[in-house]
């Protein structure tokens, strides 16, 4: 303590050097820091992170062109055992054998995207049947998936939706991880190639483009290398039907409701945004009216059907005609999706070259014998 006592003689040399050194270091640090952070134009602070891009989740599947594109399994009851048999049978129709082995490899991380949009019990068919989700989880596990994720960004409060729909429970029992959306999980995604100069592509409404760079529920997509959509088939007040393409709406964040002004544009864009490994349609119950919310058992009929397909467009068209019992020719977003699929793949390349299947004319597949149907006996 003694040396720090003030003296009459002023600073000692040592004290002078110490203070001077400290001052110089502080001044240097302040100058260096300021220069390091210096932004002469004011633009550096406004730079946006470059948006994410999604891979084609179907491209890694070695799928023969001659194999069935749509596989339909029908059953007579809605107990969990029959539902699981229906799922196995539908998937088996595509796979040429039981299980998901053609689609899921050992060690894959699989994202399942059911529709958990509203807080409804499964009976109301506003959300994917949890028995279907559970069966798909089991199939993924059997195929050797190292992890199965279940994610959706519902319209109503997410914890409630996952709880009431039974999907939380199904996931937990099946050993899958549910990801509840939170702000930090969302990240901007660009669904189209950037412009040649590197700037993001701006959607052109005249070309029916709705989705530019937009925040999506990125956390599950970041982790997964396979994506399986498990939509439920239901009436929709605005776009007529919520099916496989519309199911990807549940990955969008932000104020996504503004897209409803161009609902067919956005849904067809969603088909472009994400090419799933596989689509497994829950047609066990079908909401025929008052969609997408429903809320009355009289809105629902038993569909007793599971559809597995590698062609999201044809699958939607099939479901629209056979489950919702409506004419798919009038479904505008299928037209647009087909146009966009073609536009993106530049020229009349084969489906295999394009890396995905995409036709709205499911009857073509029927005529070429690419649709298989099985009937499953009820019970265990």
């Amino acid at each position, binding site marked *: 303590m003694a040396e720090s006592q003030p003296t009459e003689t002023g600073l000692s040399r040592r004290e002078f050097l110490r203070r001077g050194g400290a001052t110089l270091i502080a001044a240097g640090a302040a100058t260096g820091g300021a220069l390091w952070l210096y932004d002469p134009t004011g633009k550096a602070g406004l730079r946006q992170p470059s948006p994410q891009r999604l891979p084609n989740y179907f491209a890694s599947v070695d799928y023969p062109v001659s194999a069935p594109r749509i596989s339909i399994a029908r059953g007579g009851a809605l107990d969990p055992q029959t539902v699981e048999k229906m799922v196995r049978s539908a998937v088996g129709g595509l796979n040429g054998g039981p299980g998901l082995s053609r689609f899921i490899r050992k060690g894959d991380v699989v994202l399942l995207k059911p529709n958990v949009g*509203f807080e409804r019990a499964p009976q109301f068919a506003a959300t994917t049947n949890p028995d279907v989700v559970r069966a798909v989880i089991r199939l993924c596990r059997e195929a050797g998936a190292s992890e199965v994720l279940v994610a959706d960004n519902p319209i109503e409060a997410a*914890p409630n939706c996952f709880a009431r729909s039974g999907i939380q429970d199904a996931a937990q029992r099946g050993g899958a991880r549910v990801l509840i959306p939170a702000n930090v999980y969302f990240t901007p995604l660009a669904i189209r190639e950037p412009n040649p100069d590197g700037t993001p592509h701006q959607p052109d409404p005249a070309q029916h483009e709705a989705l530019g760079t937009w925040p999506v529920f990125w956390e599950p997509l970041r982790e997964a290398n396979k994506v399986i959509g498990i939509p439920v088939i239901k009436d929709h007040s*605005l776009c007529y039907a919520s099916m496989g393409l519309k199911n990807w709406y549940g990955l969008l964040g932000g104020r996504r409701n503004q897209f409803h*002004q161009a*609902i067919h544009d956005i849904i067809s864009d969603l088909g472009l945004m994400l090419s799933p490994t596989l689509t497994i349609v829950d047609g066990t119950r079908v909401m025929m009216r008052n969609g997408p919310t429903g809320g009355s058992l009289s809105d629902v009929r038993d569909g007793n059907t599971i559809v597995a397909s590698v062609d999201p467009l044809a699958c939607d068209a099939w479901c629209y005609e056979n489950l919702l019992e409506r004419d798919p020719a009038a479904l505008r977003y299928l037209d647009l999706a087909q146009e966009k699929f073609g536009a993106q793949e530049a020229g009349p390349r084969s489906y295999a070259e394009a890396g995905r299947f995409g036709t709205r004319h499911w009857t073509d597949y029927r005529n070429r014998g690419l649709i298989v149907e099985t009937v499953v006996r009820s019970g265990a």
Partner: protein
Amino acid sequence: MRITTVRILVQTVMFSLFLAFVLLTTFSHLNDWPSAKWVVSKFLEVDPLVGIATAITTHTVYRGLLWGLVILIPTLFLGRFFCGWICPFGILHHLVGWVFNRRNAKEKIESNRYRPLFALKYSILIGFLAAAAFGCLQIGLLDPIVFLYRAFTTNVLPVANMPAQSAFGDYHVHAYAWVLGFLFLFFVSMNLVIPRFFCRVICPLGALLGVLSRYAFWRIERDPDKCVNCDLCLHSCEGASDPHKQLRMSECFVCFNCIEDCPHEALRFAFLPSRRREIRSPDIGRRHAVFAALVGGLFFGWTKAGGKSTRDFSSKVIRPPGSVEEQEFLARCIKCDQCIRVCPTNVLQPASFEAGVEGLWTPILNFRMGACQHQCTACGHVCPTGAIQRITVEEKLGLAEFEAVGPIRLGTAHFDVGRCLPWSKNIPCVVCEEVCPVSPKAIHCEYRQMLVRDGKKLVRAATATALTLIDSPAPGQAVGAPCTFRPGEFKGDASLSYHVQVYTGGGFVRTFPIADNDADTLVVDGVMDPVPPAGAVAAIHVQLKVPKIDTEYCIGCGLCELECPVVGDRRAVYVTAEGETRSTNYSERDRNRSLRLTRTADAGRTGRVIGEEFRKPDSGEVPDWTSLLS
């Protein structure tokens, strides 16, 4: 083990329990552990001030409030042990005072002497109870348990959740949370100025327990023969109860620190001690007590003088589902904000002055934050006082045995047609219809034709299927300029179509869909017979879906308002309290709220008192709220 060690252990357990309870008070947790909903509000229920004050305002003791006896009766025997051992807010003050203390021993002794200021809490208690006697329940403003629950709901937990949001979902936000946060911080910080400031000076619960300590059988007793007047017993005295002279029974927290600190073993916790060495009554004179009661009574008058809870009601005061009628609600709600904590959508918000000054921090729904979750009745299940009744999903939605009385309506949605995209801007939208969760949907659409911008043209030439159009001539112009449409502009698409309304001669104006157009010619779908004459007015309309509300089905859940893409300070569709079912239609006092908006004058659908008229007489316990078809 020393008695103070036992006390510290008990305090640790109590504060941990409090933390566990508030953390459990979320929809997800209560859904995973349904039985937890019986304990999460337990600290509020054992708070005898809540029980007594609501008993004064409602003349009943609601459900779990009977637990108040668990604290009240032992206090009659032991004094304010609650303050020193159980109260989580007290424990927090105790902890802060201990951790952040920088007084030396002498300064501590001085800071723990009794001061006349400490009698303020008795005036606060008397004022609140006087107001309660008039039916105005305000104890929740300063009751420590209520205060702490509210501070945790609006500030402590959301802020703690900010860095960890990915683990627990997004943190909730609350209107004017900073006011509550500031008050919380103020009371906690005051421990550095006056130890246990809140407990000694403010706490109305402490005051109540102090009054009840009057006849305690046990208390701290000083042996004057052993005492050397060193005042060391004041060193850690939590309550400032003057153990060094005549003990102030109403101030002692029974923390036993003085016994521990006394170097001469002059202090003990004695059964039936000497009456000479105690001061039994609180340090508040009769005049001050009367003055406090007068102020409390006046406060009641002021709250009613504003009229906010009666005739000048705010339509923003939309109460949670299962809430009782507004006057009864204000007589029950202690503003603990447990409902706000448990609400999964963050739609429940603490009110500022929407419901008048007496409704400060009571729950109201703000549909910019969320919407009332269709099949959720969690708020009523954690409400300790029955301001929100425990209802089932079936009761909320008017299903099963409640079909005859219909659903509980929180209010009614309305359109602001000047802001609505299809109504006023010719932009297709109807998100509101999409999300409307009732079946059949309360929001329905009609196709409506509206003139497009500069849509009135004149026919220059016409055939049976085509119209060539010109603009109306400008002033001074003989013939209008040819039209310059974008080719295909009026083809329409899946969400809208275009029509032309044209005078076809013979006194008829007819409308034809437009099939296609080029720069100045419209091709119509159909045959115009007779062909419109040159010079006839042709008006181009866009036809799109516009939404409307059927008040017969609207339950006021607010999902339409939440999801409306017109996101300004007022959405194009918004919910007000009008038509809420909790209003008693026959009552004069809230007749403004109980507008009958339903088309069918079905008396059973309005004017019901939640929790009384239509509850099944045999329904004792309400089943779990996830009961509906799951």
